[in-house]
């Protein structure tokens, strides 16, 4: 390097400082401009009320509306409950497959099964939801099959039920459960299970005392991500649930885009954010996991 300057160490310190500034600038622009300040704005919006055209004053009216209007908090609780059920179902369905891939099959079959788990998630959620609509709607494939088999005399509408929404949600989030589970189970040493078996453990006790404690970080990571994605989902509940879906993101959309009531929508947004943060935090606390590590796993 060209070292003609009088004080090379001072110069290199200047260079390092300049580098730091240059690297820091995009990160700060992104985090402040697109994450922090927008959320501050959302918070300010949610805590003001319009008293006259273009005149606002601080108020908690939007939050009061939320608690006084049964529709809103019913939808909120329903969204939370359905998301919990969907997360539990996803875990139950993903576990045997993750176990099979991590522990039972080897070599070529293993990588093939793994890739097969990934394939459906290369296409967009819109396409996957379209598939479910073709399968389940009254004129769709499954109702026609049921009639053909003689189970029902006439096609039944399988869309627009809570169970349909759950199927869609479980389907959409499956990948985010399977992958952390596989990586957690793969790190479990087979000899531990063999030893437990030799000592007289049966399938159930081994699962409860060895497998689940070992896989806990993966289980929690998967559950947190699935819960978060489900709670914030809009497409699947509105399309598969139709008018009865009553999903909270739908309320946010209605307030923001349809009614142009940004104050109310912002308050709803904050409530949803608070709920998802609280659950993620509780999940991390309960399992003793760290946020950064969980996110890297998933």
């Amino acid at each position, binding site marked *: 390097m060209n070292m003609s300057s009088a004080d090379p160490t001072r110069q290199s310190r200047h260079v390092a400082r300049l580098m730091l500034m240059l690297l820091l600038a995009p990160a700060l622009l992104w985090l402040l401009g697109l994450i922090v300040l927008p959320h501050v*704005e959302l918070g300010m919006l949610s805590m003001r009320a319009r008293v006259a055209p273009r005149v606002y004053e601080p108020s908690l009216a939007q939050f009061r509306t939320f608690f006084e209007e049964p529709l809103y908090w019913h939808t909120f609780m329903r969204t939370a409950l359905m998301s919990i059920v969907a997360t539990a179902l996803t875990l139950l369905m993903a576990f045997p497959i993750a176990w099979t891939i991590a522990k039972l099959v080897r070599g070529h079959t293993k990588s093939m099964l793994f890739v097969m788990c990934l394939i459906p998630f290369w296409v967009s959620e819109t396409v996957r939801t379209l*598939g*479910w609509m073709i399968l389940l709607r009254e004129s769709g494939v499954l109702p*026609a099959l049921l009639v053909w088999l003689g189970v029902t005399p006439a096609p039944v509408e399988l869309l627009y039920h809570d169970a349909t929404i759950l199927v869609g949600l479980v389907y959409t989030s499956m990948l985010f459960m399977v992958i952390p589970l596989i990586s957690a189970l793969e790190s479990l040493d087979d000899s531990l299970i063999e030893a437990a078996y030799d000592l007289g453990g049966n399938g159930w006790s081994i699962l409860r005392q060895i497998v689940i404690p070992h896989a806990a970080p993966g289980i929690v990571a998967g559950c947190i991500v699935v819960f978060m994605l489900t709670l914030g989902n809009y497409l699947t509940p509105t*399309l598969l649930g139709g008018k009865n879906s009553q999903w909270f993101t739908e309320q946010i959309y209605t307030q*923001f885009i349809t009614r142009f009531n940004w104050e109310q929508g912002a308050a709803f947004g904050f409530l949803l954010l608070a709920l998802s943060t609280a659950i993620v935090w509780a999940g991390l606390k309960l399992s003793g996991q760290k946020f*950064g590590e969980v996110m890297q796993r998933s």
Partner: protein
Amino acid sequence: MIASLPRPLWLRASTVVYGLAFFAFLFLPLVVVAVFAFNDAPYPAPPWRGFTLDWFVGHDGSGRTGLFADAAMLGSLWTSVVVACWVTILSVLVGTANAFLIERTQFRGKQALSLLMLAPLVIPGVILGISILAFASRIANLADDLWGLELEFLRPGLPLVVLGQFSYIVSIATLTITARLKRFDITLEEAAYNLGASRLAVLWTITLPYLKPALIGSAAISFLMSFENFNTTLMLVGSDSPLTVMMYGRMREGATPVLNAVSLLLMVASAVLALTMMRGNKPGTSNNTH
């Protein structure tokens, strides 16, 4: 139970049955989408009325507008491609800068900053969308009130869609690139400096080639995620809809098999992209899977 232990027959049988049921569940929706793209009927529904390519190549005169004559659909496909390209470029550039920031620099508050970089991954997409919408229009209104400036790009439209998608996709790009940079052997760079290489030469001939798999991988992931993003996009979209939003609108009206045709096209395209990426990654050790 694991493979090395004796398993009763019923357990082995139920593993196979469950595996088959699980993969049927996973693939059934995709299969029906693909099959009904070729059904000779105005709705993507049974019964099967014979094979047709109308939903791809049909033109206005035949009463069935196929995908390649559906200007609105093709337009939104193109919109998605343009948006995804911008999101990919921005995410990979900023993600690379972030990776160097996390791995190579020391400053106060770095720990907090790198945690904050992960936050967008746990904020529901709808909320990212509405907060950016609200903030952008606050700035646009301020500029209008104070200086009479009309900042059109801060109103709902494609620039905001790009920013909205970028705001969380860059987190994923950052994670991917940082993971690779962490494993880089710094003595390689030091050796090059000792041999008289300039900073730029070292970056260009040593560090970036090492990062290449992660850069390509994060570009592919960013592109796919942008392409299929719906929640954030829906809140920020203006008059030009990307494909997901357009498909959503059509699905609410009652879908024609044109949607199946475009879906099949997407499946094939993303499969090709993903397979090329996997093949390219095979010799390397990239650990990120989605």
